[in-house]
């Protein structure tokens, strides 16, 4: 049972435009969500997180939005840059439980 779903395996965006990556979850106990970015031949690196008490968290070009009623979160990257080309994983957890990751979305920024 896939508790965290990233339904788009890949996404291509023109440089300078907005990239929107989506993530859906099914576990209503999840109260903390994170986004990780992964380049080839490297481990994932933490990008941004959001607690369920918020509906938005912003860090520079990256903003995560959380819609608890829809069990949906999204990552916005504005403006998109070539260095943003990577695989993005969303993950969720509830309380002291372990993280559950999605399947990832490969983002390609077109120069």
């Amino acid at each position, binding site marked *: 049972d896939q508790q965290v779903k990233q339904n788009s395996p890949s996404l291509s965006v023109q440089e300078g435009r907005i990239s929107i990556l989506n993530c859906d979850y099914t576990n209503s106990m999840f109260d903390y969500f994170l986004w990780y970015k992964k380049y080839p031949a490297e*481990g994932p690196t933490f990008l941004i997180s959001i607690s369920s008490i918020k509906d938005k968290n912003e860090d520079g070009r990256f903003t995560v939005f959380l819609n608890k009623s829809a069990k949906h979160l999204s990552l916005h990257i504005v403006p998109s840059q070539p260095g943003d080309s990577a695989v993005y994983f969303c993950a969720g957890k509830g309380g002291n439980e*372990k993280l559950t990751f999605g399947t990832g979305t490969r983002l390609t920024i077109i120069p």
Partner: protein
Amino acid sequence: DVKVTQSSRYLVKRTGEKVFLECVQDMDHENMFWYRQDPGLGLRLIYFSYDVKMKEKGDIPEGYSVSREKKERFSLILESASTNQTSMYLCASSLDLNSPLHFGNGTRLTVT
């Protein structure tokens, strides 16, 4: 900066071999994790440890075991490697269960 070091970037092993994947972290983190990454399946948790000599099964522990004799070191053991264990293996650590994970660069294991 936290550093998580996995001893091998690439490994090729034969079916039936016993395989050891080693991971060391340098930030005195309590928690350590082993994941595998496969196309279309994302990151799946194999085992984790929240203290020395403590271990917990993750989502896919079958065919694997772990060892944590020292706080900084967490080893993943494939008792008898099989071809379906060909994968990218990622080690991670975290200060506590509510802190982000810090990952190593991964070990790509091929079992032939």
